């Protein structure tokens, strides 16, 4: 064997050899992840495929013997229905307006919690309430607050029975509950920003806004992106507060609520599954476009390290 082929051989070994330690580690890694992965795959993956399958059938629980393959007819039905598009529009509206308000207010709240010189512990504890309170409970509080003759926020008008005021209250309930989460994550990111950087910039004559936008924001950008994507996707699946506040009447149903109604009231699994698939696709599109959008809007590169 020539020297160079021996050289080559040892290089191949260096790249491919996995000693006993690495092999055992690999096996353990797979073994430890397997149960969680299997549960997630089974409970998310399998029903998902099942939903895709069901969406191609007429699957009415009321008349199970009449179930037949209908191809894409369910999709045509749903996509041709003004009810679907109204729910879709409302959900998108709540998602966009809600997420935008949450990010702005969340950032403000994060700065207050991060910088306040009085009662920091009190503020941080209080802020956990909206996060921890059951969303149905919070929704009831808003509903009663806007119930004519009972609520402290209304007189005798009934905003919850008018479409746009009701949508406003839905957004309010959603924003109220989610701002603390946004603020806490951003605050944690803020504490990791080295103070020397902003101080140095201040000495260089940067205004407070310049310091925030050009130094702090790029540094906490990964956290912002994560929180925005998470909030958008979470807002898109809005269900609890709409259910409690309006029950989805008068054109205030979200897509989740609409799909639910098809299941529980309509007992129509085919149409429900079709909506489920459409919601899922929209979710994926939303996630990708939000990532792109945030990356483009904010200064700094999207990936840290």
């Amino acid at each position, binding site marked *: 064997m020539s020297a160079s082929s021996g050289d080559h051989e*040892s290089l191949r*070994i*260096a790249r491919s*050899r996995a*000693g*006993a*330690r*690495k092999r*055992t580690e690999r096996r353990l890694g797979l073994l430890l992840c397997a149960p969680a992965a299997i549960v997630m795959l089974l409970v998310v993956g399998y029903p998902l495929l099942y939903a895709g399958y069901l969406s191609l059938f007429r699957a009415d629980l009321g008349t199970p013997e009449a179930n037949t393959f209908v191809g894409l007819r369910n999709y045509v039905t749903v996509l041709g229905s003004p009810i679907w598009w109204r729910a879709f529009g409302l959900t998108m509206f709540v998602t966009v307006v809600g997420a935008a308000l949450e990010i702005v207010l969340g950032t403000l709240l994060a700065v207050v919690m991060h910088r306040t010189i009085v009662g920091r512990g009190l503020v941080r504890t209080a802020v956990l309430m909206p996060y921890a309170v059951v969303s149905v409970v919070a929704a009831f509080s808003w509903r009663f607050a806007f119930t004519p003759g009972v609520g402290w926020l209304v007189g005798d008008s009934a905003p919850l029975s008018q479409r746009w005021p009701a949508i406003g209250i839905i957004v309010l309930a959603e924003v109220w509950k989610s701002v603390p989460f946004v603020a806490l994550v951003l605050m944690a990111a803020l504490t990791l920003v080295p103070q020397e950087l902003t101080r140095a910039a201040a000495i260089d004559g940067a205004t407070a806004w310049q310091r925030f936008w050009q130094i702090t924001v790029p540094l906490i950008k990964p956290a912002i992106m994560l929180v925005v994507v998470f909030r958008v996707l979470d807002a898109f699946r809005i269900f609890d507060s709409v259910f409690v506040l309006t029950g989805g009447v008068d054109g205030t149903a979200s897509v989740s609520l609409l799909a639910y109604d098809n299941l529980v009231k309509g007992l129509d699994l085919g149409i429900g599954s079709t909506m489920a698939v459409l919601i899922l696709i929209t979710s994926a599109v939303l996630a990708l476009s939000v990532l792109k959008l945030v990356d483009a809007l904010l200064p700094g590169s999207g990936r840290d390290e």
Partner: protein
Amino acid sequence: MAEVEMDHLVKRFPNGRYVVADLSLTVADGEFVALLGPSGSGKSAVLEMVAGLEDITRGELRFDGEVVTETPPWERDVAVVFQSPALYPHLTVAQNIAFPLRLAGTGRTESATLVRETADLLGISAHLDRLPGTLAAGQRQRVAIGKTLVRHPKVLLMDEPVANLDVRLRGQMRSLIGDLHTKFCTTTIYVTQDHTEAMALSDRVVVLRDGVVQQVGTPTELDTRPLNLFVAELVGDAAMNLLPATLEGESVVSGLGTFALPPAVRRASERSPGNEVVLGIRPGDLELVGSDEDEALVVSVQLDDVVSVGSQTTLHFTVPNRGAPSPRSLPPGFSVPVAGTAATARISGPCSERAGSRVRLRVDLARLQIFDSGSGLNLSAPP
């Protein structure tokens, strides 16, 4: 305890770099061997291969003749003391020391006895119930050593165990490690960058550079007969004076003076093509002599500085570059300053001389080292 045989060990990174190139070394049962080299020389890689923490790319590793190349670390019965003691922060000192015993399934009472004995030996009995986080650095390293002692492993590996300690503690810990080895005679491989540690503790020292063994020998051998310039520079109490010189006939000419060549060098120099060499003189091999002596071995220098540290005094002076080779012909890493080469002499006891005065130094001819300036090989060492 066991004999460790490293048989043509090779370690390569997937990027192709050789970390250890073809290392063969047998550490006898009960022997204390130091791996000495600068950072990046591959000494830690050797240790990790013996520990089983890193794969062996090629070659074979045997403990007492049994091949363990593929044995996972937890089955090798090898203990390691790391540079920064890796203790379990949630366990007390006693629980930390007992941890290997717990894994081995040792009984509670037996384990408690062993822990107590070990703690007594290390002088940490008073801290058994404390958490590692509350201990000082030296105490933490003692606990880490205690963890290895309780198990009586086949092989004990130490990876710069005192490097993170301050100077005073370092000395204490070094003698503790020496004492423990005398007491238990565990086969030990000790990785260090510090030659004094290596020389003080080991039976043999292995000098590594870029993954290649430079010399294996007892501390005395390394000190008196370094095989090349690299070893000569690394080993020794004080850095060896290295002076550019030329071989002329039967003598060596340097800025310090002209000296007759020892017979061995004369023979070697006949084989060596060039006549440009590096003359190595240990600071301790220069002796301060009175003005009445006048022989060929005495040179006169002007002192730049005199530094006295209690029992020892270091004289600093500059050797002019007379007859020096062009810098180009020197081995990589050696440069010749224009003014000359800084050199030192070390004498015992206090010294009345001051900077600026001229003194006379006698050179111990038998201990002169002459290195080929091209290859760095020691011409005065037996081939």
